[in-house]
């Protein structure tokens, strides 16, 4: 029998899940073709909010990479929109004219955001919030300080608002109804939500009826019916979604609000299924992931001749905004035959409400304290009779049966099918059984194998409790984090023993400290190499095979295997000669991208590995050396122009920056080190978010450290005050040396300082002149071995094997090198 052809129109999360289930149950049952109107693979739309907030990237939220489609023999048409279904001929046709015939068809066209047709809705700058293109458009528009108006105070609108605020925008939410998220929350919880959003600086205007969007060439503001005008640089419409049913309608299928499906998910044509947000089941359409995934399972089974049915059940909602705990589940509307139990604690901002009918819970709204959400939701779904525990029900699971207050009891009492991770649909039983089968020991492993808490992470605490429950005393998250799987020892013990036992090579460390692997792994080897470089300057010979590729070849690898090169510009100063040499190199090697970096220098991107030595030779010839933009070491010293030019400058910040960089370049450190020197407290060099920062003042130099402006944002701590440039340099060098000696590999200065304590750093560097001098001298000694330009060394022939292929074959050479 030839394989049947299954065509899927749409490539969202629901059809993705259906195909997963289908391949799991019967790999090879169908020849599958997928048409995606978006030019992408399947990604996790729930995670658009973290992308918008800058916490995740597109790569992080891909569900099925290209490899998945290849592995399952799926033909994926990206950027192909289906425009016609011919039910008589059983074919679909795309707008590019591709026609494919099907035995079974799944329509999963999803939904479109509703655009309110007020005047001005077509102005540039009016956006929706539905897919990755929308998120990118928002991120482009999201300049700090710019103003955003979000129309719609539902789940999506509020997540968009929080994300835009994270991007530094000034955000106003307009909501038509009297309270926020009225579909998921009752008025009281809606009010609490509004209050906490407002306390974070998001303006909320309820009962706001938009009259028009104003603006000439692009959006300038939103005017309400009552005349209020909110100025805006962008407007995001997030008022709801509408199922995309036009394709089905034109094909003559039954369409109401969405594409009408029977409980077996078939449309009015038995060979055509509809699935996801475009489908209408039992008179309802759906937008949350749980029911859509349930539909997907039904479709997969029925494609294989099953008789599964989809019956809409209660759903639960969580708001994915950091710092706001909110959970709602089931049906909580008031009605005559319903009762409610309410708990309020205004000072703690806690509100809980249960809606009951005939001693069974229909719905729950929790705000401020949501730990019992899963427990309530489970009882909603199972229809548990709660008559016995009504007295204490609202206090949660810990208070049932007069038991003691054991935080683990709540989790222990959850049945196996209770959902722990909503994003990835992982239930408690799946976690406990996977731990047992694979012998998992910690959160990272559970995350890797079950995906529980791997998406938004809001269930991490719950997952940890399940692990603790399953493993008992064997689970000890507070134990010393071992360096890697090759040793039981933590970083600090390894560093201490390297000194104590005078271990001076990687094999010596591994032998003496009982490494469990023969030659380490990609985690411990670079760390050991750094510790040995740091502890035995001049004695230990650097092991290039234990360095990450960037440090091995002194350039930065890019996604396509080419490299980028950044020459050093001391203190951000350059010259006509240097710029001319850079321009010549760009021309000579046809370098595709030249970019100014955030560290005040120039990045040359897209250089072929073989060309690197020649590029460096030309840059060296003009007097430039490696900027170490790849190093766990000193990167840049950013400066402002200071007293030499600036009318506000108090000291020569540029000159000091140059001196600092000339003194510290080439040093290896546990993680990268970025410095800055500002000439006055206006701080144009942004010194207060750097690893080390200096702010010049009339009386001298204020020295800062432990700032961050990457994954974390943190202002610096003040280390102390210096009167002269020399004193400043000595303090900075002593600080860096202390960090070099105490830091764990890949631990940035701010994390190190937090771990050892700001005061202990001050005590060593500021309060004890002798200690500072000793640190300074150790830094100077170490520098005497490392200030050799790595580029010049490689131009002279060092590590030549890194930059040439072992062999290169074209069609001609192939014949010559053949052996007889």
């Amino acid at each position, binding site marked *: 029998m030839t394989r049947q052809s299954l065509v899927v129109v749409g490539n969202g999360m629901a059809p993705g899940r259906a195909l997963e289930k289908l391949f799991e149950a019967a790999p090879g049952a169908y020849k599958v073709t997928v048409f995606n109107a978006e030019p992408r693979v399947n990604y996790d739309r729930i995670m658009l909010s973290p992308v918008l907030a800058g916490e995740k990237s597109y*790569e992080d939220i891909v569900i099925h*990479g290209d*490899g998945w489609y290849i592995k399952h023999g799926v033909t994926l048409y990206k950027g192909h929109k289906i425009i016609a279904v011919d039910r008589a001929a059983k074919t679909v046709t795309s707008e590019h004219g591709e026609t494919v015939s099907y035995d079974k068809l799944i329509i999963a066209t999803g939904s479109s955001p509703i655009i309110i047709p007020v005047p001005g809705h077509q102005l540039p700058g009016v956006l929706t919030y539905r897919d990755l293109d929308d998120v990118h458009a928002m991120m482009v528009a999201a300049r700090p300080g710019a103003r955003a108006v979000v129309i719609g105070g539902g789940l999506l609108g509020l997540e968009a608002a929080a994300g835009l605020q994270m991007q530094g925008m000034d955000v106003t939410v307009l909501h038509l109804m009297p309270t926020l998220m009225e579909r998921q929350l009752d008025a009281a919880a809606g009010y609490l939500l509004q209050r906490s959003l407002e306390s974070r600086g998001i303006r909320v205007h309820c009962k706001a009826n938009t009259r028009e969007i104003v603006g000439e060439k692009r959006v300038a503001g939103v005017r309400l019916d009552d005349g209020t005008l909110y100025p805006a640089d962008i407007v995001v419409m997030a008022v709801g979604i509408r199922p995309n049913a036009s394709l089905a309608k034109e094909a003559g299928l039954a369409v109401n609000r969405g594409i009408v499906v029977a409980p077996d998910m078939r449309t009015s044509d038995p060979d055509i299924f509809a699935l996801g947000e475009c489908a209408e089941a039992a008179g309802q359409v759906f937008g949350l992931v749980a029911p859509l995934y349930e539909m997907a399972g039904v479709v997969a089974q029925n494609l294989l001749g099953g008789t599964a049915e989809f019956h809409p059940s209660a759903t639960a909602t969580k708001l994915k905004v950091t710092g706001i705990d909110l959970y709602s589940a089931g049906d909580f509307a008031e009605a005559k035959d319903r009762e409610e139990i309410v708990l309020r604690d205004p000072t703690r901002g806690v509100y809980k409400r249960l809606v009951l009918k005939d001693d069974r819970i229909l719905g729950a709204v929790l705000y401020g304290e949501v730990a019992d959400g899963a427990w309530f939701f489970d009882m909603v779904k199972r229809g548990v009779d709660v008559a016995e525990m009504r007295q204490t029900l609202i206090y949660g699971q810990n208070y049932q049966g007069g038991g003691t207050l054991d935080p683990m009891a709540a989790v222990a009492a959850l049945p196996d099918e209770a959902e722990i991770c909503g994003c990835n649909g992982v239930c408690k039983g799946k976690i406990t059984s996977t731990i047992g089968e694979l012998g998992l020991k910690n959160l990272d*492993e559970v995350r*890797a*194998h079950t995906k529980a808490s791997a998406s938004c992470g809001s269930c991490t605490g719950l997952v940890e409790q399940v692990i603790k429950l399953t493993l008992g005393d064997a689970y000890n998250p507070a134990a010393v984090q071992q360096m890697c799987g090759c040793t039981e020892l933590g970083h600090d013990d390894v560093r201490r023993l390297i000194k104590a036992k005078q271990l001076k090579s990687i094999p010596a460390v591994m032998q003496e400290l009982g490494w469990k*692997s*023969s*030659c*380490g*792994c*990609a985690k411990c*080897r*670079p760390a050991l190499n750094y510790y040995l470089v740091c502890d035995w300057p001049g004695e230990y010979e650097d092991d*290039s*095979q*234990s*360095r*990450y*590729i*960037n440090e091995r*070849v002194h350039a930065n*690898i890019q*996604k396509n*295997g080419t490299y980028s090169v950044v020459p050093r510009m001391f203190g951000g100063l350059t010259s006509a000669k240097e710029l001319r040499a850079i321009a010549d190199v760009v021309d000579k090697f046809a370098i595709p991208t030249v970019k100014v970096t955030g560290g005040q220098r120039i990045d040359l991107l897209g250089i072929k590995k073989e060309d690197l030595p020649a590029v460096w030779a030309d840059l060296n010839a003009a007097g430039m050396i490696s900027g170490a933009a790849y190093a766990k070491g000193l990167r840049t010293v950013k400066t402002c122009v200071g007293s030499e030019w600036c009318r506000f400058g108090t000291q020569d910040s540029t000159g000091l920056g140059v001196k600092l960089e000339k003194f510290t370049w080439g040093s290896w450190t546990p993680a990268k080190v970025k410095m800055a020197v500002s000439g006055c407290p206006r701080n144009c060099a942004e010194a207060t978010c750097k690893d080390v920062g200096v702010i010049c003042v009339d009386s001298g130099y204020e020295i800062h450290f432990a700032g961050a402006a990457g994954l974390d944002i943190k202002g610096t701590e003040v280390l102390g005050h210096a009167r002269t440039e020399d004193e400043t340099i000595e303090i900075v060098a002593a600080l860096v040396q202390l960090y070099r000696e105490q830091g764990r590999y890949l631990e940035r200065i701010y994390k190190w300082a937090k771990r050892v304590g700001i005061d202990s750093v001050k005590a060593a560097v500021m309060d004890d002149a002798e200690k500072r001098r000793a640190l300074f001298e150790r830094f100077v000694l170490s520098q005497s071995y490392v200030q050799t330009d790595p580029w010049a060394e490689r131009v002279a022939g060092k590590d030549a*094997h890194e930059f040439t*292929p*072992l*062999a*290169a*074959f*074209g*069609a001609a050479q*192939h014949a010559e*090198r*053949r*052996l007889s």
Partner: protein
Amino acid sequence: MSKNVNDASAVDWIAVGHADEIPLRGARVVAAPGGDIAVFKAADGGIFALRDRCPHKGGPLSQGIVHGEAVTCPLHNWVISLRSGEAQGADKGCVPRIPVRVEDGKVLVPATLLLSAAA
């Protein structure tokens, strides 16, 4: 020509260089019309070859850190077995293995695999 590359006599082997030219716990690239090949030397001197493309995002495995009989991809730290080409740990994926022999210090791979991507 036989497709069975494990049968040495039936394969047209071609020398791509000398084993000494590959650093211990390191790798070199062989550029070829059928796609780059990464030739690795493990800590014990064992020679392995894989297509130079990580199954995750196509990263050049030849640029990674070699440890035991595995390499860690330089782009996103996937760990790939040099022996099987399989991703280790929880990651799933496999990179095509390239049969390799060492004779008198010369590293040999099947000529067909230099010309075409099939493995």
